[in-house]
């Protein structure tokens, strides 16, 4: 019940943010639609896709920033820390909200993108449905989780900054560990792939941004064979869980409200 109430007040507190996000997204697509008429049908599906992608990317980046800021300005504050709920749930609430918002932004943009590109290129909807049915939905899910991963990693810096002053060494270690992880994450995963070259083959469809804006949509939604390295995937999942558990633990045991 506590978590549901936390989510409820989290959503109530962001009513204006959701409305702004929704209206500004509609606004951009409306301008795009009007531009299509103004430029007398000279807007290509590729251009519309590029704009959609850009709107989605900006929204996702802003969402990450706002969630990290909310962690510092609302969650690690008197009100939420006064309630008789384990503080780790306050952190998990913010992470859950980050995930829901990422999915919301994705779906909202996908909806408008489909509407507008369908208008410009009538075969797009069929292609998109085909793409999702053939496993594209998992690709999109992975993109969503990647955004959530960024929120979790970045929240470590906020948590470190709210540790008691006598935990300076812990703060320093947390910051160094997170920076090193961000810098060497890719190198570590490639190293693991080389040491443990065990792959599973998946047919995961890609959204090839480059070719979509330069070529025709018709030929770009395909199903290339995907080799997923087991070791690097396990490493990715484990670090995701590690940072989530670590941050929840720090939230519960170490954070101070100054």
């Amino acid at each position, binding site marked *: 019940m*506590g978590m549901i*109430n936390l989510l*409820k*007040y989290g959503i*109530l*507190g962001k*009513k*204006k943010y959701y409305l702004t996000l929704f209206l500004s997204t509609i606004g951009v697509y409306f301008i795009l639609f009007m531009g299509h008429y103004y430029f007398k049908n000279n807007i290509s599906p590729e251009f519309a896709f590029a704009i959609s992608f850009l709107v989605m990317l900006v929204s996702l980046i802003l969402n990450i920033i706002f969630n990290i800021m909310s962690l510092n300005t*609302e969650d690690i*504050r*008197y*009100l939420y*820390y*006064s*309630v*008789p*709920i*384990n*503080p780790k749930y306050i952190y998990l609430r913010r992470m859950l909200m980050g995930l829901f918002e990422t999915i919301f932004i994705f779906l909202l943009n996908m909806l408008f993108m489909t509407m507008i590109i369908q208008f410009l290129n009538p075969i797009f909807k069929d292609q998109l449905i085909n793409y999702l049915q053939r496993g594209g939905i998992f690709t999109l899910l992975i993109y969503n989780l990647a955004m959530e991963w960024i929120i979790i990693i970045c929240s470590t810096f906020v948590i470190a900054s709210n540790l*008691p*002053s*006598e935990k*300076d060494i812990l703060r320093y270690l947390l910051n160094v560990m997170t920076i090193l992880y961000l810098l060497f994450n890719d190198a570590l995963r490639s190293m693991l792939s080389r040491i443990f070259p065990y792959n599973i083959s998946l047919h995961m469809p890609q959204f090839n941004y480059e070719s979509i804006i330069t070529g025709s949509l018709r030929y770009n939604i395909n199903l290339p064979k995907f080799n997923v390295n087991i070791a690097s995937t396990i490493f990715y999942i484990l670090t995701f869980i590690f940072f989530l558990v670590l941050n929840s633990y720090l939230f*519960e045991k*170490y954070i*101070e*409200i*100054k």
Partner: protein
Amino acid sequence: MGVLEIKGLYKYYGKKCALKNVNLTGDFGEIVGLFGPNGSGKTTLLKLIVGFLRPSSGSIRVDGKDIDHNTRAIVSFLPDNNLLPLWMTIKDAFNFYKDFFPGFEEKRFKDLIDYFNLSMNRKVKELSKGEQEKVCLSLAISRKAKIYLLDEPLGGIDPASRERILTGILKNYREDSLMIISTHLISDVESIADRVIFISQGEILLNEKTEKIREEKKMSVDELFRKTF
């Protein structure tokens, strides 16, 4: 055994010692005035009791239990600044407390809001500092807690309203609880305090019944404070 027991409490901010070997007990039915100059450690002590800060060493027990998130159900804290997010209305804050704090007394809160001439639909961001403090105070004392910690409840309040707030606090004080009021406006609070604690540079200098001070020292607590500091 008191409802509050503090033993050998130290709190450091980096190298600065904010609290030095604090030993205190508090019982039900007491109103304690915690007095000290700015930076003496009053707020630090209250934040340690509610669990916002963590002791560097020593122990704090509330109702026989070590401090954790569960003890927050029986400790009601009024900070010295607004604790409510600016998006909230007074009604949202009321609902928040009702949802999270078992035993929150709706009628008491609504009566207090009426008493302070406020309306439930007003937004926190539209309230003056004094009005925000009145809302936060109403929320804090409408909770059913065993310990009430009021940090500067009269700070930023005009003298006419102070009287009203003190009356509000007294009217709503529960006999089955301990109330600690931290302030440097001693003359306003000494009339309602059963016991006073003087704190300076993180050390308890005096911990005595108000009546005893008046009888033995032949002066008011305010006069003693001015003499001491």
